[in-house]
């Protein structure tokens, strides 16, 4: 007989949920060099990441966070805060949700979006650092490209839909209403669907 205690999550995730690392104490963000926040309470997830940066080397010396969300959201932000310490801003900016999930030993498909918010908040914190220090030219925008003109659906929307569980073109349409008017974007959307499936799920 199976024993109780086998969570839907990995042991690594459980560890970070039970003893989260680097939670920001208090609420004073002034002592930090960059602050980023993503998500909202109505959607069920919100994360704030704050960083301290060594100005000469642009290395992140401290990373703390607050998270409103489920176990995987808490664990994702916790492990992310460990991963970025000692990395340069540029290296940290390119940490992908997949790497966070891998570090946790994997996430259930429907929980991947929780880890996406953490690295988005981190990127917002890094951009915030650049802005505060007059380095606006370094701010990296995540440019969205419109794929479906009729319904105004971007590549980001497609990525979001994949993270929320869309695996086929039909499911993508159900999630986004993409391609439901003229249908000309079908080929491009299918390529992106496969791309994001590969990036996030290795499929």
């Amino acid at each position, binding site marked *: 007989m199976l024993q109780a205690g086998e969570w839907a999550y990995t042991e690594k995730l459980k560890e970070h*949920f*039970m003893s989260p690392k680097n939670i920001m104490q208090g609420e004073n963000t002034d002592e930090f060099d960059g602050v980023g926040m993503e998500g909202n309470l109505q959607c*069920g997830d919100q994360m704030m990441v704050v960083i301290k940066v060594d100005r000469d080397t642009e290395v992140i010396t401290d990373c703390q966070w607050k998270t409103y969300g489920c176990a995987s959201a808490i664990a994702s932000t916790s492990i992310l805060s460990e991963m970025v310490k000692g990395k340069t801003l540029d290296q940290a900016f390119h940490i992908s949700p997949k790497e966070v999930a891998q570090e946790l030993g994997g996430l259930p498909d429907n929980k991947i979006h929780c880890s996406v918010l953490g690295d988005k908040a981190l990127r917002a914190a890094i951009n915030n650092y650049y802005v505060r220090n007059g380095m606006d030219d370094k701010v990296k925008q995540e440019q969205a490209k419109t794929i479906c003109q009729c319904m105004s659906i971007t590549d980001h929307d497609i990525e979001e839909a994949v993270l929320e569980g869309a695996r086929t073109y039909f499911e993508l349409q159900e999630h986004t209403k993409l391609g439901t008017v003229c249908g000309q974007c079908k080929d491009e959307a299918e390529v992106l669907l496969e791309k994001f499936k590969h990036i996030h799920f290795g499929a």
Partner: protein
Amino acid sequence: MKVYFDNNATTPLHPEVKKELIEAMGMFGNPSSMHAWGREARANVEDARSRVAGFIGAHDDEIVFVGSGSEANNTVLSLFVCASNQCIPGTKMRSSIITTKIEHPCVLETSECLAHRGARVKYLNVDRYGKVDLDQLAGMLGDDVGLVSVMMANNEIGTLQDIATISKMVHECGALMHTDAVQAVGKIPVDVAALGVDFLTISAHKIYGPKGVGALYVKKGIPYCPFIRGGHQERGRRAGTENTLGILGLGKAVEMRQLEMEAEEKRLASMKAILKKGIEERIDDIYFNGHPTDSLSGTLNVSFPGAEGEAILLYLDLEGIAVSTGSACASGSLDPSHVLLATGVDAERAHGSIRISLGRESTMQEVEYMLDILPKTIKRIRDMSTAYIKGGTHAASR
């Protein structure tokens, strides 16, 4: 300490049910067989039928044993898309179904499916306590309506509906009345004649019986055709060899409810009151969901803004306490509880809700343990939450 506060999800077997099942484990005969083995099984099935019928004031031949509450609900709803005059005499022209926004998914999803198959489905709103809008029902009822299905007690918030009044309104317009009483039977008195319903759904595992068995009350003379076909079992109303042990367990469970229900419900109500008061005193910024008085005595649903339900559930699990949540994250979907949203609760409060459901094995020691652990758990989660930081949604409330 191990604390099981999730009795609306399922319940442990009553020791008497367990005992009777263990003793009956050797009974394998097919109730349809004419020989001694068959007759033994048949006798037990019919004995259980009498117990269930007696418990809700029905006649024995008005009880159909089924595989679950979900099956019973699917059966009733599916009666009303059948265009055959032989199946449902007189309901052919009545192609509309009315139900509510707070039903169990087995009613809601079946209703959606029926809509695809041509039925018109209308959904009743509920007020902030989860009570059905009777004025809206009056406006919806007409000679196109074939069936109205309203759950008697809600599984998430415990709110009770006035089924007798609704039945009367429904019958005045010539429609039939179904109630999903899975959470009500065995917790509050249920009498089919007093309620005036035509169909009523019962499940065994919510009342300390085994899983995989339920019963459907079908009033004598009401049109009916089977959902599962191809056998003469249950007088042709539900094909498939009877789950004899399950049915036996349901019969015993019902018998035990008859003996224990009244005293136990009083005990649960007083424990719930203490739990509610304790939560109010020890945790700030909370909301109770559901009706303050007209509610199942063991069910308490509470929201903790700024804390997410799945996190609450799992931190409590680590302390040995079992509850459930209306959070989207725990359900695998992206939307929080449809019941809470229907009562007008905003998404954040729904994400941060937990349901505590007490049962016959719950004790005051467990309530005290919960009142010790829960405030610490909520504080821990809120301390790491973005909701209370400077500029956060609830920055001012602490």
